[in-house]
């Protein structure tokens, strides 16, 4: 604030209210040179889909990285022109620098939590996970190649997963076969397959993003990065009877099956009416004791929902190399021919 020649600090005006002297603003002008600091509102949840255009997701910030007709960059889209016959290395060479710049520009690390929904068989997955800086509270929901995938897909998926794990990111893996067979039906929305089914599955999961991230972070502290999941969407008493049946039923359709001894943690999140909370919690205990007695950690989370139908999602922590082991042969077959297509080539 300006001062009069006699040192009285002033309100805005021409003369000092205390002594009547004329105010001088010359020495106060430097104040105007300093700009106020802003705290941008980046929101709590960021979801970026990679190689999955047109997912219908809900978050504070939703963006997509995809290939299309031409290069196009907006605050919510990083689209590159498809490279004919191009693999992940071609996209990396051409777009890695600009994707890093785009990620910085849209504040990829600024929200509280981040989920990347990545089709790791898509060459862009390697590009995205190479460009992604090392961030906390960031998880990858990944469709991964399996034994039915081609060696090129296995190679791409292997490299992408290795990059994610190398950056310390927890991964929820869905095998390509599981993703291809996903089919949900609800009375209000009808059938959903493909990208619609993924959107439908992610809808409850991302609505509980804070809890989901918390569970993944807890598993990280146990050294567990790799997860798979199972779900019952729009479940009801008339279909499943008691809640324990729903828990048991969903465990027969896990997104990436493993040997029983490979499951290390099990966590369920239920979205239902408040009066059902107790029943679901007890059922979770029964389910855990029956099928995952030796789990290192098991947690139940409940989210109140208005609908009579409930959603139940369970994530299973497992050995980090489960997903990689299944596709290592395809990966190595490609690297044998083209050594630059190794994990090291993307780092």
């Amino acid at each position, binding site marked *: 604030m300006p001062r009069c020649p006699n040192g009285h600090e002033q309100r805005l005006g021409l003369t000092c209210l205390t002594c009547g002297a004329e105010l001088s603003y010359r020495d106060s002008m430097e104040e*105007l040179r300093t700009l106020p600091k802003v*705290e941008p509102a980046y929101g709590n949840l960021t979801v970026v889909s990679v190689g999955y255009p047109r997912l219908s997701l809900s978050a504070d910030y939703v963006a997509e990285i995809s290939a299309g007709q031409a290069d196009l960059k907006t*605050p919510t889209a990083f689209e590159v022109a498809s490279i004919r016959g191009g693999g992940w290395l071609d996209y990396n060479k051409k777009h890695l620098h600009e994707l890093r710049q785009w990620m910085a520009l849209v504040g990829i690390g600024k929200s509280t939590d981040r989920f990347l929904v990545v089709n790791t068989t898509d060459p862009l997955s390697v590009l995205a996970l190479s460009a992604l800086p090392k961030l906390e509270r960031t998880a990858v929901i990944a469709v991964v190649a399996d034994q039915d995938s081609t060696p090129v897909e296995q190679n791409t998926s292997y490299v992408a997963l290795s990059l994610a794990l190398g950056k310390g990111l927890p991964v929820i893996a869905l095998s390509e076969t599981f993703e291809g067979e996903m089919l949900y039906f609800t009375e209000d929305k009808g059938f959903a397959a493909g990208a619609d089914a993924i959107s439908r599955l992610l809808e409850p999961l991302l609505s509980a993003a804070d809890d989901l991230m918390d569970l993944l972070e807890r598993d990280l502290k146990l050294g567990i990065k790799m997860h798979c999941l199972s779900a019952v969407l729009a479940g009801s008493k008339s279909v499943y009877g008691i809640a324990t049946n729903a828990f048991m039923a969903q465990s027969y359709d896990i997104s990436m099956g493993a040997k029983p001894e490979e499951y290390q943690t099990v966590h369920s999140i239920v979205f239902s009416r408040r009066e059902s909370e107790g029943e679901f919690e007890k059922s979770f205990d029964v389910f855990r004791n029956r099928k995952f007695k030796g789990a290192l950690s098991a947690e139940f989370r409940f989210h109140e929902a208005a609908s009579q139908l409930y959603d139940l999602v369970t994530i299973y922590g497992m050995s980090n190399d489960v997903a990689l082991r299944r596709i290592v042969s395809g990966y190595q077959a490609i690297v044998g021919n083209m050594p630059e297509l190794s994990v090291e080539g993307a780092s």
Partner: protein
Amino acid sequence: MSVPPAGKVASPEWPPRTYRLVSATYQDKAYPEGVLWVNEAGSEIELRKWTGKDRRTGTAVARFNLEPNVDVLVEGPLLRVSGLSITLESPGVAGEVADLLGRPAKESEAVRLLSEAESSVSGFLEAREEALNVLSRIKVDPRDALFEVQSMGTTDDTEPLDAVYSHYSTLLAASLEKMTSSLATGEKALGSRVTNRLYALAYAIGAVQNALFEGGSDLAQELAALQELGIATTAEDLRMAKPTERLMLRAHQELVVLATARSPPN
């Protein structure tokens, strides 16, 4: 005394003056007596000779509309202007008339200098307004706003927001330097009163910008300060686009009056 020529209006504050001539020469003809009529407000002079039986009626011999940059030469009681040579009663009177006739040129120069000074103040304040507008957008919608201003030199190891601050810090430092330098140069001719007023104006508009940026203020203090500076406006008006440009325009007339201010004649 005489009547102003038809078609010319004499300012009530600055009435025309007449000065008795000792002698005058115009177009090789000598006029041994008469008066010099000076309408300062209309920037015109007349050479008048006495006519009539009583030799008391002033009749115009020649009338001149003076350009602001007209040359006025004084040698003792002799005054030369626009082909007219006039010997007045004393060197003091000749000096007074020369001062009167040179005043439009001084005022024109003062207005020019004032415009330069105002332009430098506007330059700084408008750069600041732009910076605060960008920061306001970043505060609410950082991704869209930073995407729009990505040309501000984001590099791999620079945070986009830091690049924006860096860009505007450099711009504001340069424009503030330009402003203070311009005001210092102009102060020699405009005087400290005008310069102080320009600083006060810049600070008050800066305070308006801050209040608008912070939001939630009724702007009462800022409106009162602007009122003191001779700018009548409203909070609604300040909240419309580009308030700096409008405030500077509204301040201009008051500043011109200050810059060309003179004491009324005795």
